[in-house]
C-alpha cells in the first residue's frame, strides 16, 4: 500500500485546524497512520484513492470531514489554445495521450516533493507500473506548442533527465536503471514513442524518461503535464487527480486539445462530475437511523453533492473519485461522512447453533489420541524446499508440485508427504532431551489429472536410542484403534522398499485393500542427511482416506 509523508505545519495550514484534531481524524477518512514523528506523520492510503497521494488531496477531504468546506470542490479550467497532435504510428504501442497546462503557480521544495510522490504513486497503482499510464511533468517555459506525440527509431538521440549528454533511445533502455526497469513495456517494437514541441525539441520518451530540457524545479512557474496510456479511461482518471491537485496548489489549469490522426479530437483534462442515484432504503445496510438531511450532509462532508428526489438520493461525484463505481460505494461514503468512530456496534445474537466441520472433527480426535500417547504436535509449512522434500529423503521429485517464481527457496514445492518436515524438526532439536516423539496433522497434495488432489494426513516420528519399527507400529495400531476402532486384523502392513525407509524394515499400510500410508525405520543415509545420531522410526497415514472408506462402508452396510 502506498505511503505519503505529511508535515504537521503544512497540514495545519492547508486544513486550518490544529494538528491534534487532524491526526485524530486521519483514520476516519481511511488513512492508516504508519509512523509518527515530532513534526510529521506517515500515512498509508488505499490504492483506489490516488487523490490521497498528496497533502493537498488529503486536506481537501479533511476540510469536508471537519465541516469547513462541504460539497463538490470547484476546479476552474480555461482553454489554453495549445494542442497535441497524435501520430498514427503510436497506435500499436501506446495509443493515447492527454495533457494539461498548469500556469502561474509557485512551488516550494515540499510541494515539488509531493507532486513527484503523486506521480510515482499513480505510476505504480492505477498506472500498473507504467504499463497502463505514465506521466510526464515539464517546465512549459522551455518549450513551444503545439506538441507532437509520435515515434522515432531506436537510435534517435536526446539528453535524458539527470544526464548531460545525448543518448540514443536504445542506450537509455539498456544503459540506465529506469530504462532497464521499464524496457519490457516497449519490447517487440521497432520504433519508440516520443513527445516533441513545435521546434522539434524532445520533451519525453514515454513511458521511460523525460528530457533534461524540461526538468521541473522549485523555480518552475508554468507546467505542462502529459499522460500517455494504453487505456484511455485510466489516463483520464490520472489526469483528473493531477489537475485537482495542481489547482489546489494555486495553479490555473489550462485545457489542451488533443488531435488524433484519424480526425477525432478531445479536450483535456475532463473534470466533468458524474451522477449516481440510489434509493434511500439502500442505506438500511448501515443500521443507522438517518434523515435524508443527515444523509445529504454526510455525503457533502465527503466532498460529494447530493439532493433528494422522492425516496432517492441523487449524488454528484467529482471526476477524481474513480473509486466510486456503484451505489454501494455511496453507502460507504455515507458511513465515512457519518464518521465510523460514532457508529455503535450492535451484536445480533444468532439463532443458529454452531458446529464443527465433520473432517476437522476427526482430526481433532486424532490429535487427542496422539497427545494421549504422549506425542508432541509440531506445525510446519505446506510449501517447503525441493531439497528437503526430495533430495534429503532420497526420493525422486518428478511429480513435485512446484510454485512459480517463489521469493524464497524454503517455499518451492507443495508437500506430498509430511515425514520430511518432521525429520527436519528432529534435526533442529538434536540438543533437546530424547526420547522425542512428534506428530503433525497436515494437508498432502498430489497431481490428479489436470488438477490437484488434497488430502488430510497424519505422520509421526519416534527418535531415541532404542527407536525401531515395532515401536512405530505400536503407536500406529494405537492411533487407528483409538481413533476409528480399527483392530490389528483390519490393517495390513506389507513389505515395501521405499525411501526414506531402510530396506527390509518398512511397509506400506493397507486398509480395506487400499494403500493409506507407510511405516518403517528411517535409513541411515537419510539420518546422516539430517545430522541425526539416534535411530528414527516413522509412519504416515492419510486420515481422510480411511474416514471416507469408513463412511462409505457405513452407508453401504
Amino acid at each position, binding site marked *: 500500500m502506498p505511503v505519503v509523508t505529511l508535515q504537521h505545519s503544512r497540514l495545519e495550514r492547508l486544513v486550518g485546524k490544529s494538528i491534534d484534531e487532524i491526526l485524530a481524524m486521519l483514520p476516519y*477518512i481511511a488513512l492508516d497512520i504508519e509512523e509518527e514523528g515530532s513534526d510529521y506523520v506517515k500515512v498509508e492510503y488505499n490504492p483506489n*484513492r490516488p487523490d490521497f497521494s498528496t497533502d493537498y488531496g488529503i486536506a481537501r477531504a479533511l476540510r469536508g470531514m471537519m465541516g469547513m468546506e462541504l460539497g463538490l470542490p470547484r476546479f476552474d479550467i480555461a482553454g489554453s489554445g495549445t494542442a497535441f497532435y497524435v501520430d498514427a504510428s503510436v497506435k500499436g504501442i501506446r495509443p493515447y495521450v492527454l495533457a494539461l497546462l498548469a500556469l502561474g503557480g509557485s512551488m516550494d521544495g515540499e510541494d515539488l516533493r509531493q507532486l513527484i510522490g503523486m506521480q510515482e504513486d499513480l505510476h505504480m497503482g492505477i498506472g500498473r507500473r507504467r504499463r497502463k499510464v505514465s506521466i510526464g511533468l515539464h517546465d512549459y517555459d522551455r518549450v513551444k506548442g503545439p506538441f507532437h506525440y509520435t515515434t522515432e527509431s531506436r537510435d534517435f538521440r536526446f539528453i535524458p533527465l539527470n544526464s548531460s549528454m545525448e543518448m540514443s533511445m536504445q542506450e537509455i533502455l539498456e544503459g540506465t536503471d529506469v530504462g532497464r526497469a521499464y524496457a519490457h513495456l516497449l519490447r517487440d517494437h521497432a520504433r519508440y514513442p516520443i513527445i516533441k514541441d513545435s521546434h522539434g525539441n524532445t520533451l519525453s520518451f514515454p513511458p521511460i524518461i523525460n528530457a533534461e530540457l524540461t526538468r521541473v524545479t522549485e523555480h518552475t512557474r508554468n507546467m505542462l503535464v502529459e499522460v500517455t496510456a494504453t487505456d484511455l479511461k485510466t489516463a483520464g482518471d490520472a489526469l483528473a487527480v493531477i489537475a485537482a491537485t495542481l489547482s489546489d496548489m494555486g495553479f490555473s489549469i489550462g485545457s489542451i486539445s488533443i488531435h488524433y490522426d484519424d480526425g477525432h479530437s478531445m479536450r483535456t483534462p475532463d473534470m466533468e462530475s458524474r451522477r449516481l442515484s440510489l434509493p434511500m432504503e439502500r442505506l*438500511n445496510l448501515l443500521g443507522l437511523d438517518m434523515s435524508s438531511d443527515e444523509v445529504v450532509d454526510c455525503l457533502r462532508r465527503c466532498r460529494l453533492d447530493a439532493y433528494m428526489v422522492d425516496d432517492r438520493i441523487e449524488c454528484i461525484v467529482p471526476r477524481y473519485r474513480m473509486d466510486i*463505481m456503484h451505489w454501494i460505494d455511496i453507502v460507504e461514503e455515507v458511513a465515512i461522512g457519518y464518521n465510523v468512530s460514532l457508529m455503535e456496534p450492535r451484536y445480533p445474537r*444468532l439463532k443458529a447453533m454452531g458446529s464443527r466441520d465433520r473432517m476437522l472433527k476427526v482430526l481433532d480426535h486424532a490429535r487427542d489420541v496422539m497427545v494421549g500417547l504422549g506425542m*508432541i504436535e509440531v506445525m510446519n509449512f*505446506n510449501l517447503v524446499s525441493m531439497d528437503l522434500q526430495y533430495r534429503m529423503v532420497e526420493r525422486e521429485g518428478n511429480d513435485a508440485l512446484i510454485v512459480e*517464481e517463489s521469493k524464497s527457496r524454503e517455499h518451492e514445492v507443495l508437500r506430498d508427504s509430511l515425514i520430511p518436515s518432521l525429520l527436519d524438526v528432529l534435526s533442529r532439536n538434536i540438543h533437546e532431551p530424547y526420547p522425542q516423539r512428534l506428530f503433525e496433522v497436515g494437508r498432502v497434495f498430489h497431481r490428479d489429472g*489436470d488438477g490437484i488432489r488434497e488430502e488430510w494426513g497424519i505422520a509421526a516420528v519416534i527418535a531415541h536410542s532404542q527407536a525401531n519399527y515395532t515401536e512405530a507400529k505400536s503407536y500406529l495400531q494405537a492411533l487407528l484403534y483409538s481413533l476409528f476402532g480399527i483392530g490389528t486384523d483390519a490393517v495390513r502392513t506389507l513389505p515395501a522398499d521405499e525411501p526414506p525407509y531402510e530396506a527390509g524394515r518398512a511397509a506400506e499400510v493397507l486398509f480395506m485393500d487400499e494403500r493409506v500410508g507407510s511405516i518403517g525405520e528411517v535409513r541411515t543415509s537419510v539420518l546422516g542427511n539430517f545430522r541425526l545420531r539416534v535411530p528414527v522410526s516413522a509412519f504416515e497415514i492419510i486420515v481422510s482416506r480411511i474416514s471416507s472408506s469408513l463412511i462409505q462402508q457405513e452407508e453401504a452396510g
Partner: protein
Amino acid sequence: MIALHDIERRLILALAGSEGRLDGLSRVTGLSMDQVRRGVEWLRYKGIVSIEERAVKQIGIGREGLNALKGNLPEVRLVDAVAKHGAEEGEGVSLRDARMMVDLTDDEFNAAIRYAREKGLITISNGRLYVKGSVDLKSLPEYRLLARLEGGWLRLDELGGEELNAYRMLRRRPDYIVERDVKDITVRLSDHGHSVLKQILDEQVRVGGEGTPAVKRIDVAAPAPIIYAGRRHILQDVIDEVREILIGMGFEEIDGRMVQSSFWNFDALFTPQDHPAREMQDTFYIAGINASSIDADAQTVDRVSSIHAREWGYTWSSEEARRLVLRTHTTAVTIRYLADHRPDEANVFSVGRVFRNEKLSYKHLAEFHQVEGIVVSRDATLRDLMGIQQEFYRRLGLNRVRFWPTYFPYTEPSLQSMVYHERLGRWVELFGMGIFRPEVTEPLGIDRPVLAWGGGLERIAMLKYGIDDVRELYSNRLSMLRGAARCQL
C-alpha cells in the same frame, strides 16, 4: 506412649527446633492451613504446645494498585506521554494539551499532576507543564512496594523505612492498598511437648533398630527425572480457542481446498485480472498444470466475467481464471460455499492456511493461518458486523475495540479493527471486515447482504504467548513446545 494423630506428630517434629507461625508450619509440614489449625488446637488441649496471640495489621494490593502495575502509575504515564509528544526541553506544554496526550480520567489526571509534582517529576508555572526528564518506573518506591504486594499480603510491622514511606503515599489514593487486621499466632512446644518429642524420636529409632525388614528411607527431596506431557502445538491451541468461540456464537465450521482456481480466489471476488495482487510477485501459482476448465458452473462464470468486462472495462480471460493458485485468503472458501449453497440465511466460518509470495521476516510469513466468517441475512447491517467483531474479541478477553474505514476490493463498506491489549499497554490491529459488494454476490444469485470478516491468527497467538517474531511459531523448538503452559490466563 501418648496416642498422637499423624498431623500432631508432624507438627511436633516441625516445632522441634523453634517456635512457628501457622503459615510457616503449613509450609514446613505440607499440611493445609486447616489441618495445621486443627492440629495446633488438639496439641494445645493436650498441653503439648502453648500459643501466643497478637493482633497485627496486614496490607495488600487493591484494584487500582493492580491497574497501576499493569498500566503504569498515572503520573508516570503523564510524564512519559508529555515527554514522548516531544515537548522540547524548556518548552513545556499547556495543561490542556497535556490532558489530551494521555488517556486518563479527569480524576486520574488531577491525581497524576499532584503526585508528579510531589515527586519533583514536573513543575508547573503559568499554566504550562515542564517535564524534568524521563522516569524509570521500576525505581519508584511505590512501584516496588506494589510489585511486592502483588505476591501476597505483607505485615505492616515488617515494612522497611522506604517501603513504609511508599505505603503512606499509596494509602492516600483510593483502592491502591487494602488493609486487614489478622491475629498473629505463635506456637511453641511446652515442657511436656519437649518430652513427647523425645518419645517420638526414640520410637523412630526403635522401629528402625529392631531388625524387622524396615523400608529403606529414601531422599524424598531429591529431584525426579523429567517427563514431558504430550501436547498440541501452541498455535493449534489458539486455532481451537477461536473455533470454540465462533461455534459458541452460533457459527458453522467449513473447510475447503488450499489450491484454488484464480476464478474463485480473485475473479469471483471482483478483483480485476490486472490487479497488482494477482501478480506472481505476490501470489503463488502452480507451475506446469493447465486446468482444462474452471471449476464452476458455466452460468456463474458467465455472470462474473461480464461484470468484470462491464465495471472494469477490459477483456476478461478465461485462461487467466483457470490458473491454479495457492489461496491468498480463506475468502476463496467462503465464496465457494455461497456459490454452492446460495443460502437465505447462513453463519459460517473457516480457519485455514493462506499463502503469499513474500520473503520471511519477523513479521511476515509466506504461509499463515486466517480465520474468516460470514453472515448472510436479509436484515444484516454494518453495525451488526461491528457487534459480531466486538463480541468475538470480548470472548478472547479483549474488551476495547476501535473501528475505522479501509479498502478491500470485494467489500464495501470496509472497516478495519484494532483492540487494546492490556498487558502490552497498546492498540493492536486485528481483523478486517466488510459487506460483500453486489458485484460479488449478485453473480452467485445472492440478493441479500453478506457480512464478512477475517484476519490472521498468528498475531493473536503472538499476543497470547508474548512472541515478537512470527517465525517462532513455526520454529518447532521442542523446549518451547514442551514448556508452553496450556493455560494462558
